[in-house]
């Protein structure tokens, strides 16, 4: 069956992952033990990292091995959402929306803004599968699709709050959470909006992470 073939191919490529280091990397710059005591801000940033960004290995749509915190989140402005390639419920709408969002944010994408879409079904969404799925959405450089070991993606999913309080609902992937997280990691700014919201407003919300102090007026 097609899925098995993909899975086989995918996981052959991923085999070395199993032994990957699990260490949580320290933050760059001034932290405890690096020229003075950690400030409250340092501690807060480390806490957010510890609570929400497991530094697990993932694989990009190009098959490149990356560490979730070190390589994808640390020091960056990001968006994050979950999908699976065969999802025919809300994923098509959310992904089409993100495709519009990337166009509106093209000036910053892949420079200071990075978009991530992570699979909920790594067992069938191999590197090949997510690459093809990504191409379907005309993703520009800077919008990275990710797969990996199921247990690693599960840690990420729970870490960044894509889980339900009810374990039964949580296991039902057709009800998976359709939000888009957006944030600025070094500034510790994090929020989320629905992936099914209007693309213009998603793009505007993400832009607050680039210009956190901008003013806004909505005419009456």
């Amino acid at each position, binding site marked *: 069956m097609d899925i098995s073939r993909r899975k086989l191919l995918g996981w052959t490529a991923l085999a070395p992952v199993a032994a990957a280091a699990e260490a949580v990397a320290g933050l760059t710059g001034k932290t405890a033990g690096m020229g003075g005591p950690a400030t409250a801000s340092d501690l807060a940033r480390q806490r957010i990292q510890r609570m*929400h*960004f497991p530094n697990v290995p993932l694989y990009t749509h190009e098959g490149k091995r990356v560490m979730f915190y070190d390589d994808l989140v640390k020091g960056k402005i990001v968006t994050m959402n979950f999908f699976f390639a065969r999802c025919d419920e809300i994923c098509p709408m959310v992904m089409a929306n993100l495709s519009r969002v990337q166009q509106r944010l093209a000036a910053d994408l892949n420079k200071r803004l990075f978009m991530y879409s992570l699979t909920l079904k790594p067992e069938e969404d191999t590197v090949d599968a997510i690459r093809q799925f990504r191409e379907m959405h005309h993703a520009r450089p800077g919008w990275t699709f990710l797969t990996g070991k199921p247990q690693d993606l599960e840690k990420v999913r729970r870490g960044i709050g894509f*889980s339900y*309080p009810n374990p039964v609902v949580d296991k039902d992937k057709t009800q998976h959470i359709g939000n888009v997280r957006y944030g600025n990691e070094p500034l*510790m700014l994090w929020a989320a909006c629905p992936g099914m919201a209007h693309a213009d407003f998603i793009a505007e919300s993400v832009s607050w992470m680039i210009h956190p102090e901008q003013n*806004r007026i909505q005419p009456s």
Partner: protein
Amino acid sequence: MYFNVFGEKVSRARYREMLNAAKNRRELIAAGLTSRRTLFKMGLLTAGGMLVTQGGLSARAQTNPPSSGSTNSPGTNQLCLPSNQTASPATRAFIEPLVVMPLARNVSHLSPAPTENPNTGAGEVRAAPFQAPQIDPVRFPVVPGTLYQFNQRQFTTRQSPDLPQQTIWGYDDGTGTRSPGPTYRAFYGSPQLTRNINSLPAVTQVNNTGFGLPSVTTHLHNGHTPSESDGNPCDFYGPGHFCDQYYPNVLAGFNSDHAPQGDINESLSTLWYHDHRVDFTSQNTYKGLIGFYCLFNQFDTGDEGSGFHLPSFPQYDIPLAFNDKVYDPESGDLVFDLFNLDGILGDKFLVNGKIQPFFEVQPRRYRFRLLDTGPSRFYEFFLTDLNNLNNANPYWLIGTDGNLLPNPVQITSVRIGPAERVEVIIDFRPFAGKTIYLENRLNQLNGQGPVDNFGPGGTSQECSANLGMTVPQILPAGLGNLLLQFRVSSRAVADNSVDPATNPTFYQLPSTNVDPRIVRTFKFDRLNGQWSINGQFMDCNQFRFAVQQNSVEQWLLMNLSGDWTHPIHIHLEEHQILSRNRAAPTLPADKGRKDVTQLHPNERVQLFFRFRDWLGKYPIHCHNVVHEDHAMMALWHVVAQGDDVRVP
């Protein structure tokens, strides 16, 4: 099958242990303040004298952040499992006095002087010219007689002597920064203006404490406020900018059905102000941007020697802001769960910015204005005498949300959700020389809302069956959250305030026997984890419907989101609840005028509105601020000619 917050299977025994830990935590709170003898009487001490083991201090001991080196991440709540967050460090209860916020200090002038049109050249960010002076420039001068200058600032404060100084945000009226901010004392007939200046530090890697966005818009909650001064979530500004907000302090109807003075039966009393920045309201209010606004008139005078003879403000009329928070177990710093979609519960209970304070009162009547500032917890307030737990201690409900009920109602408890207020009168005479407590006995396990007892599908039955132990909605007396300790003096004092038992009359409820121009339906739901209203999401660029100025509407709020309770707030005008699930409201707190209505699981609530006097944009939203920030909000506007959108 049982799961811990890491999604790992745990045994039933372990699960029960986690629940017991929660119970133990409550016992420990009690243990900190009662004698061994009392504890025995309460049945809390075991024969061995051991109250709890160290590991059982908190349900959250199970969910501490993993030590460094581990890559485990916590998930969100599990059904029936108390809370999902970090366990705060231990703090002692009732060793610090209650802080009563000082009255806001006004200023003689503002420089530059306020202008009718937004003074963008000076850095003002306001959506439109002031409406009030356009209606009547004599009654509402552009520069009214009462002016305030409020700076939002970062400052440090101690919320418990057992925790370090916290770096949070508050309001500075020129006398120093505090949270909750200073209390406004406002009067009908005296328009006022506040210059709200964002003086928060620019966000940098060094000065952020882990949550909050220094971008603000200050909403006067429950104000009959022209839209440009309402503090709309989509009009926000960064450090160095300001907004002049015009508060006409005028009764609804003044420019429509009750011109020129307005309808006295629309009088407001307890309003509050808070940040309303779209997507960041939960973080910014949690960080301290809240305060009270008390509005008086010729009847509700603030002087027990006149008018309704309610206890004198501010000596015997005390605003109390309740919220629950979490502190890092290692550093003791205030923390906020940034990645939560459901609702956030704290394990420390603050009143007016202090964890579990005490308040020395005299044996007489007091008026208290109880406000739940969230983020997500509901409270049911009881008066508890720990030496007499079987006694129900009655007190008087005199107001709900922003206004007085027609008559006082004697109660033994009252429930409020985020952003709701109740006004109560407590007579301390029967407790002279004693110590009693204001206790929250409502059981809430997670952001879904209180444990509900709505039959077989309700969490109470579900969790009780699941766990093989009773999970009540209302906890036994003494086992809830003791919020505030009252130390009642034994020395008799004068009390010229009205005795609620004499059944004084305050205002009448405005008639709802009017045909609405339109009935609109709002379905509150969760679509793939996304909080929605009628299947749509917050968008600052879209007005979903147009209300006709000076018209009557009925709004039908429907809760399709299963187990969730949503406190729904509508700006500009108060409403009256016509029905809950087609039956007339029965709870006293449901019978008054409201600006927030609790929408319980699978409920259908019918509301009556008159939209009067002002034009412009306002929101409807869930006031569980975590839901609000995740798009459970819609913008609408008041225009000369309304539309016919029945399902906006």
